[in-house]
């Protein structure tokens, strides 16, 4: 009953000043539209750039660093337990960065419910031989199926068929940069030299393009068994275990846990790519700052229009008070006006923001560096919409509150005397 009365007065006042009310609402609509579009676009961009990393990087990577043992044999000896060890310049043992017990570790991981997938990898340092010139690079031996499933390997093989890597013995997929340097076509035989000095010939079955030029200039892929052959190792030999977890946020925790359990080194994606995180968060911060600035400007618009309305409607306020409306009723009337402008303008803003995002989503965006991207990316996170509407409500409430408070304090006697 009470709300109905207040709202009927509010709406009548708004209708009487339809033009200004509309302008104020359009201000809110505009700022919310831009807020949503900006955040969706930046979100899409972040996803795209993060995708470069997260899609293809393991969330946790287990590996063995070649380093001197933390506990030297002399430390273990009881005989020297109370002595001070001053042996310096300790050197690591001559061993390969192999993960021991890799089968067992992989098996354990595959049964861990927090893990989405596991893929073994061998990294081998090689030289690519082009005529008389050699240049350094690396070859990754991968489990083709697991790599395709977990890291969208297929998407980045721009020429040739990725599955040939598994089906053709002694095959290699070259990084696009490597292939360009070697002038190697599909089906060509190329020659590489392993770190142990062996020369091996491999058949090129495809090109790989990650979008990161520096990587494409040195990196190539072979199957696990080919890599093991290159290094003259058994089929147990693995240097990395790549893990995808179900929840990205858990990665640092799991990395620590696995490092302890499996006695290997472990690095999580957040630590490995800290600079990308920073970039993303700065971009997000900027979009929020711009969006909120727009909203505050719209808020000032509402504030002005409400102040003007109150100035014009002094008589109305006086008569409402003289006939029994309390200061609080008057305040609610003006706050309701402001909130109506804010909510209507805000909802329209959400709609237009959504439409504008969809339009941007259709704009072609082709770049050689990102072979899988065809249009600009948009992130339709409902969070942006919730923040947008909540902010528009808060801003318009505040913008309305102060003029409304002023209206509620107006003394009807002064206004009536003023006539």
């Amino acid at each position, binding site marked *: 009953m009470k709300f109905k*009365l207040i709202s009927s007065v509010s709406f009548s*006042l708004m209708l009487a000043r339809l033009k200004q009310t509309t302008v104020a609402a359009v201000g809110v609509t505009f700022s919310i539209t831009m807020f949503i579009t900006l955040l969706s676009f930046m979100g899409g961009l972040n996803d795209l750039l993060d995708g470069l990393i997260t899609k293809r990087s393991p969330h946790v990577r287990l590996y063995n660093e070649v380093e001197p043992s933390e506990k030297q044999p002399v430390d273990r000896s009881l005989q020297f337990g109370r002595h001070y060890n001053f042996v310096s310049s300790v050197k690591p043992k001559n061993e390969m960065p192999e993960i021991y017990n890799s089968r067992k570790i992989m098996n354990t991981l595959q049964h861990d419910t927090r893990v989405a997938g596991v893929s073994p990898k061998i990294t081998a340092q090689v030289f690519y031989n082009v005529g008389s010139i050699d240049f350094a690079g690396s070859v990754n031996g991968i489990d083709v199926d697991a790599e395709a499933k977990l890291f969208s390997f297929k998407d980045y093989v721009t020429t040739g068929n990725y599955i040939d890597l598994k089906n053709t013995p002694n095959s290699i997929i070259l990084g696009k940069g490597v292939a360009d340097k070697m002038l190697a076509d599909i089906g060509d035989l190329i020659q590489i030299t392993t770190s142990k000095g062996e020369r091996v010939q491999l058949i090129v079955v495809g090109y790989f393009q990650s979008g990161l030029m520096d990587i494409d200039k040195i990196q190539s892929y072979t199957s696990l068994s080919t890599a093991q052959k290159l290094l003259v190792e058994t089929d147990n030999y693995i240097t990395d275990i790549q893990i995808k977890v179900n929840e990205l946020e858990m990665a640092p925790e799991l990395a620590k846990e696995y490092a302890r359990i499996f006695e290997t080194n472990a690095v999580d994606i957040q630590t490995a790519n800290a600079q990308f995180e920073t970039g993303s968060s700065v971009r997000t911060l900027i979009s929020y700052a711009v969006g909120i600035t727009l909203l505050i400007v719209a808020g000032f618009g509402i504030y002005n229009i409400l102040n003007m309305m109150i100035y014009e409607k002094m008589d*109305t306020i006086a*008569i409402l*008070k*003289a006939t029994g409306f309390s*200061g609080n009723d008057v305040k609610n009337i003006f706050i309701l006006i402001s909130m109506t402008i804010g909510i209507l303008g805000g909802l329209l803003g959400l709609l237009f923001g959504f439409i504008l995002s969809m339009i941007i989503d259709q704009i072609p965006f082709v770049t050689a560096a990102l072979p899988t991207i065809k249009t600009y990316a948009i992130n339709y996170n409902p969070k942006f919409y919730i923040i947008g509407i909540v902010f528009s409500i808060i801003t318009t409430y505040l913008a309305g509150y102060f003029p409304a408070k002023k209206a509620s304090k107006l003394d009807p006697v002064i206004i009536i005397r003023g006539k």
Partner: protein
Amino acid sequence: MSNIVLQARNISKYFHDPVTNQVLKNINLTIEKGVFASVMGKSGCGKSTLLYILSTMDTEYEGELFIDGVNMRNRKEKELALVRNEKIGFVFQFHYLLNEFSVIRNVMLPGIKLAKYSEKEVEAKAYEKLKLLGIESEALKKPNQLSGGQKQRVAIARALINDPLIIMGDEPTGNLDKKNSENVYEIFSELAETYKQSLLIVTHDPEFANRTHRIIEMVDGAITADIIQAEK
């Protein structure tokens, strides 16, 4: 219940701007039910000031004000608003109607605010009041489509909507021509005689005042004469 509608005891009022100036001096006044009283006095003698205090809109005064036997001192703003809504009908020199609303809505607003009756019932009552004042045919117009006399009648209808204890008027005929003033007087008179409505009306028109039950004369913020007139 006593017959006293409104009682002012020793009401004084000062203005401090630009210099302290006592505008009302120990006003004592009692209005009984069904009395049609008028207040006369030179311009600037404090009639409006008194009326604003009696209608609870002005709370800065010394002395005591009782409305319907209840002391109005130290009441919250909200409680005073309710008193105005329920017990006092106010008619101004300028009609003060809300141009955003139709005539009928204007009359209904204080009734809806009181919420004693449903909106439908308030509407029926509003029509009844408009009919009493002979302007029910204008109900759906906007106030700015009415003549001055019609507007003032709408304002009176609005003052009547909650069947108030007392109607106060600050020169309600001050802005009207002879014929319309006469009309407003007739309405007030009928309200007092037929419906036992108490009225306290400030006026400059001696002819108007002479036909009321009681004439209160003010000079320089004090009541100098309080004449009860015999029924005619």
